[in-house]
């Protein structure tokens, strides 16, 4: 499969958006519980962005606002977008599971709330590791699936 140009600044803004949203939901919910609603919202944003890139909120923020105003400089790299999309989708799926747990937490037990928050925190940690160190776990999983012939890598 041919390489295309991927703007890595867009990916970084996306990762920063994920980390910030989860942290706001996590810390904010201590004082104002409805802020937990940000988690399912983020899950929707990530899943929508995976299947329709024009709906990827944080990437659009970069392309429509941050890049044109010179706030964030572009960083084009010869790359393939598929592993990054896969990683984003995986993050979205985990946040969707986290959202289900949070909903169960409201109606059944706070144990589910803690589990849901922990899962969301793990997504934020992985997004931070990718943002800071360039290590993308989702991309590694994509490689492993490709190696086993489960996806066309």
């Amino acid at each position, binding site marked *: *499969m041919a*390489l295309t140009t*991927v703007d*890595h600044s867009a990916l970084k803004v996306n990762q920063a958006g994920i980390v910030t949203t989860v942290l706001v939901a*996590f*810390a904010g*919910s*201590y004082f104002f519980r409805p802020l937990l609603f940000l988690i399912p919202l983020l899950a929707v944003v990530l899943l929508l962005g995976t299947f329709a890139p024009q709906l990827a909120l944080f990437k659009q923020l970069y392309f429509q606002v941050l890049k044109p105003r010179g706030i964030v400089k572009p960083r084009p*790299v*010869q*790359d*393939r977008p*598929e*592993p*990054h999309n896969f990683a984003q989708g995986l993050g979205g799926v985990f946040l969707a599971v986290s959202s289900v747990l949070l909903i169960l*937490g409201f109606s059944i037990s*706070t144990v589910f*709330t*803690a*589990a*849901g*928050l*922990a*899962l969301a*925190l*793990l997504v934020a*940690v992985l997004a931070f590791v990718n943002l800071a160190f*360039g*290590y*993308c776990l989702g*991309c*590694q999983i*994509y*490689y*492993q699936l*490709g*190696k086993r012939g489960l996806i066309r*890598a």
Partner: protein
Amino acid sequence: MSVQLWALAAAGTVVLAAAGLEAFRSTRARRIAVGATSAPAADPYILYFTGENCTVCRTHQEPALAKLGQVRVDKVDAIAERELANRFQVYTLPTTVVMSAEGRALHVNYGYAPAKKLDRQLAEARSSSTLERTATA
């Protein structure tokens, strides 16, 4: 304890467990891979396992390899050359293997390896190759 603290404790435990598992996995893979063989060459060289999907390979590993200067680097597509990748226990990309001139794996680096580290490993490979040649002669 609040829900947030429980969540933090649970996430922290998972992160620590994952880091421990990763350390165990790479140590185990390295132990199996070191000593594996490939083609001999005139001088120590590097087997560089990469793939089209590997971003870190392009953004970090290739610039680091370029800094090494006159060293033979054999680029291997880990998906296409599955047998070779399995021989060196490649479970992550990039993976760099420092090979002795005799074609034996001396150092295996899973994940990004900086130029300094590779330089040091190559120096060790050169001295071990010289020792082996002297012993054979």
